[in-house]
């Protein structure tokens, strides 16, 4: 049987929530980064489903944009994390609080 839009949205919402939770609770930058990807992909799922049910492809086009952008982000982000690791020998978020208040 055919899954309904709300089910798709439920899945994507769950993904988004998990991702956000991961960003907030996980201590390691790389994991946090993965959680971010999760959030973006939640959006992708939603878009695909939406465009499927709206019967136009704009959403799917949008998904391609998102994927590309995400790739760029990952490239920059990983480079950055590596640079940071080089400097501090750690990728723990907790060590990144020299600037505060």
């Amino acid at each position, binding site marked *: 049987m055919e899954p309904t839009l709300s089910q798709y949205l439920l899945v994507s919402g769950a993904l988004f929530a998990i991702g*956000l939770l991961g*960003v*907030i*609770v996980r*201590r390691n930058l790389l994991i*946090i980064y993965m959680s971010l990807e999760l959030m973006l992909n939640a959006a992708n799922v939603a878009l695909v489903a939406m465009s499927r049910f709206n019967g136009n492809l704009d959403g799917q086009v949008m998904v391609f944009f998102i994927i590309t952008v995400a790739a760029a982000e990952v490239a920059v982000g990983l480079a950055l994390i590596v640079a940071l690791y080089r400097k501090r020998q750690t990728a723990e*978020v*907790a060590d*990144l*609080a*020299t*600037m*505060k*208040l």
Partner: protein
Amino acid sequence: MNTAAWLIMLLPLFSAAAIGLGVFRSRKASAAISVGAVVGSFLLTLLLVAAGDDLHPSVTWLAIGGLQIDIGLQINGLSKLMLCVVTGVGSLIHIFSLGYMKEDRDISRYFAFLSLFVFSMLGIVLADNFVMMFIFWELVGVSSYLLIGFWFEKPSAADAAKKAFLTNRVGDFGFLIGILVVWAALGSVEFGDLAKAVSGETAMITGLAGFLIFCGAMGKSAQVPLHVWLPDAMEGPTPVSALIHAATMVAAGVYMLCRVFFLIDGTWAMEAVAWIGGLTSLLAALMAVQQDDIKRILAYSTLSQLGYMVMAVGLGSPDAAMFHLTTHASFKALLFLGAGSVIVALHHEQDIWKMGGLRERMPKTYWTFLIGTMALCGVPLFSGFFSKEAILDVALENNLLLFLVAVFVALLTTFYMTRLFIVAFMGKPRSSHAEQAKESPAVMTVPLLVLAVPSVIAGYFNAHAPNPLVLAASLGVLVFGMLLANSAYSGAKADPLPARFGRLAKALRDRFWFDEIYQWLIDHVQENLAKLADAFDRWVIAGLLVRGAHGTTELAGRVLRLAQTGNLQTYAFWFAAGMAVLLVFTLS
């Protein structure tokens, strides 16, 4: 004629301004211009009196909406009489000052102030409306302040000046409110309009206004309870005491009452005025009995005589009041100047117990002083006799109780004047100064002689057949008082009264502790109020509120920025939390 009228008032102002601006460098010139000004005013006054007709020149000073304030000169019988007193006595006292102040380094300043005073006094005399009168009222107050505090480096003088000014201010407060009441009730401040406007149904309000305005008179004429400044005012130079605190300024209150008599006539205010006058005359006379400073004795006697006049007004006879005012002006000025000449002769010794035996050393002063004393005591055929008779008549007609008070006061008057006279002039000298005392120069004695004349004859202009009862009473107390004083003081080395009845004597000596009571009031009421306000300002407004607001802001900032932990996961959490809040806020 109008120009003459204006000149009378303005001449002294010119001289004051000229001296004040230092147009005349030399001391002599300043003195000359000042004396010239006042004498000029006197001559012009005589001119007006000769011309006879009433004048009323006036210019607008301030006119806004319904409020119209003029500077107008009202010249009629009353003001002419007062003009004569002020300028006449004034001229003599100016001349006397030439001698008295010869040695003083600030003689120019002295004469500037003196001219300023004469100007202000003339303003009061000539004023044709309440606001103008109030203006010059204030100016008189300030010029007397300046003159009392003339030797301002002497703390006692400075304090006396301050006291005089502030006490008068209290009276002026009532005066001002009174003016406002009148204006609101009758729609004008000009005496002419007001006289037309008063009627039976305004009696209540005009009575109130009249009484409030009388508060001003209480200040200037030093009526109880605002009398305390006058004795201290004797810190000023003696001619000043003679001019301001005997002849003119203190009379201003009485004069004003007579001027605006129509306002209180037939209202409840009369009663109050009469009683305050009577009370003043009694208390002052009592206090005078136990003073040792020659000028203070005269001051208290002035108080009690003023009480007489005020009482007369209150009893409905301004004429009697003015009559007594005139005679009193001459003989009290005479007495003060006489005292002044004694003080100079004794190198500023003022305690009568350090005097004595001046009779043969200063004959002119002695005789003139004697005349003054007799006039004051109301010895028959002297001016004081007739004016006092007039007042006693009125009292007898209207209020028996006050009549008895007045008679008793007359007794006291005779007593303390005789005391003063015997102790100061008769007997042996009681100090080295008294022994080397010399008669004063002509410039001082001539005014004495001149003043002696009206002191004797001034009474005859207004003499009328006295009421036999009154005559008997006054003669009785006169003789009795003289004998009493003579028996007590002839040849006495110190005052016997304290020994005999100590308590009472002490009470009199300490002037019934009026000053102490006021001092207490000022310290405990006024000062505490001020302290309270100051503390409130410092701690509550500037402290609690202002610093509090500042502190709260700073604190809020320090608390809020705790959100910036520096940990990006906290930030992410804030982001999510904020998101959630917004969701609830918008979707609910």
